[in-house]
């Protein structure tokens, strides 16, 4: 399979490869300019989690994240990509520390943006304290980098979505691009159901999960700036668009975000379902939004959806 793909022209491969189905390494390879990626502490260094063996769980030599440097359309970028197929892309001690180190360097350099390809269920519970703290350190390093002028773009379209602390890190980014499979939330469906009961949230109701946490709803709310189709080509274009659009971070952005979120609560705080929110937002036949194709939805979102890049 791999040998066959090597014969496919790069342009064809990038437009035919699904972001959600690709591995973290394939995402990095196809998102960046061909051959430009250099990894930091790659799997050959075998820096594994020191904690998983306590639970008799298999380790991975890169601890489920790829970080490094490359070029996007000729310009230097830092990149981090989570592997959602290893421990659900969860943040452990080593996994998180790699992203923290990358953001700390970006803060010092100032001019090199950072792309974060999220694919995570949140904290890796087998090393919960280290994972939780790793997320806190990433948020701090990310905001210090943004304060120093660094653009940090989040790309969300993996099978594990962007849950738990991953959702909080995503909320710290300068801008987000999301595809239909990319769900963004803090509490996952099963966690809500376990704590509050199936009447509050039926985690097996996939349609409910998608319209509450999925990419389309997040785009319409303004939580994500760009909705994209699920190919590597679309995500690459989205990343380039967002890098061109986002401005510098400062107090004005935080004040605007306070207004933006407060306005959302006033307008939609009494809505019981995403369809009610979309209807209140003026979308005719809102119940059909989940069925719209990517192109149809993007046209709708560009007409009605909010953007948040000046208010986040």
């Amino acid at each position, binding site marked *: 399979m791999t040998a066959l793909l090597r014969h496919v022209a790069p342009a064809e491969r990038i437009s035919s490869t699904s972001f959600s189905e690709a591995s973290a390494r394939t995402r990095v390879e196809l998102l960046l300019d061909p051959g430009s990626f*250099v990894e930091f502490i790659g799997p050959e260094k075998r*820096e594994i989690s020191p904690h998983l063996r306590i639970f008799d769980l298999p380790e991975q030599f890169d601890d489920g994240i790829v970080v490094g440097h490359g070029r996007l359309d000729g310009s230097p970028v830092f990149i981090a990509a989570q592997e959602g197929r290893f421990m659900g892309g969860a943040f452990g001690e080593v996994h998180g520390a790699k992203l923290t180190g990358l953001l700390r*360097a970006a803060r010092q350099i100032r001019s090199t943006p950072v792309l974060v390809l999220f694919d995570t269920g949140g*904290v890796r519970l087998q090393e919960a304290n*280290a994972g*939780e703290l790793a997320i806190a350190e990433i948020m701090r390093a990310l905001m210090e980098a943004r304060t120093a002028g660094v653009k940090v773009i989040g790309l969300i379209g993996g099978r594990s979505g962007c849950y738990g602390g991953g959702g909080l890190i995503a909320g710290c980014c300068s801008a987000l691009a999301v595809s239909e499979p990319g769900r963004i939330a803090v509490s*996952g469906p099963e966690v*809500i159901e376990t704590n509050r009961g199936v009447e*509050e949230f039926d985690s097996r109701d996939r349609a409910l999960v998608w319209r509450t946490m999925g990419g389309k709803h997040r785009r319409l709310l303004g939580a994500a700036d760009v909705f994209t189709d699920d190919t590597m080509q679309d995500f690459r274009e989205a990343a380039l668009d967002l890098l061109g659009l986002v401005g510098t971070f400062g107090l004005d952005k935080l004040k605007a975000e306070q207004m933006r979120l407060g306005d959302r609560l006033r307008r939609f705080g009494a809505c019981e379902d995403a369809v009610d929110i979309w209807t209140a937002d003026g979308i005719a036949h809102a119940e059909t939004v989940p069925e719209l194709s990517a192109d149809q939805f993007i046209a709708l979102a560009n007409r009605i959806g909010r953007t948040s890049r000046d208010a986040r």
Partner: protein
Amino acid sequence: MTLDNILASLFPDGHDVRNVNGVIFGSAMLRSGARTLVIGVADRTAVGVDEAIRLSGHVLDSLDQGSGPILILVDSDSQRMSKRDELLGLNEFLSHLAKVLIYADINGRPTIGLLYGHSAAGALLATGLATRVLVGLPGADPAVMDLPSMAKVTKLSIETLQEKAKSTPVFAPGLSNLARMGAVHVVWNNAAPLADQMEALLADMPAVHDRRDALGKERGGRLKAADIAERVRELALQTR
């Protein structure tokens, strides 16, 4: 200690801090004469969109009008686990609160968290873990996730988790475990006046620089994080 006892011990000269539906807000005079903004979460209240936006609003108002350190008291549940909160984008509200606190700290308003009860998961990330210095009070019982949810996600039984929790600091709930990780800088003595301990902390405030990973290494709770982050940082700097 109760919230009233804590406030009385911290601010013997008086304060106007109120607890309204679990959200703490007010100000107090410090020994130095400076005023401190006091916010927080009380009564093990869950932090949802409504609580988070009130807290971030208080901090933003204070950035315009006030000066001095910002104290955030924490006795919360985890984030509010509900359909409504997720529907409205809880991740953005919690991030926003954390961002406002981090921004304040970087820009001359040092932030101090005081964990005096429970807290967990996203609520802890948006409050105590978004400060420069997190202080614990004896009896505080933070956790990353409640055991039933953890059992559901890890597919391990609650009994197995309880057994492993006894022997594994990196995973187990509790103040001392978080301190070993470097998350909690210091645990105060609740038998001595908190005002004295606050004065000592403010007189010797750590620089604006996240040293929690180094602290975790010194304390033996996280042996790899600081080194991995530093190695990646150095490799990344070499690309210049």
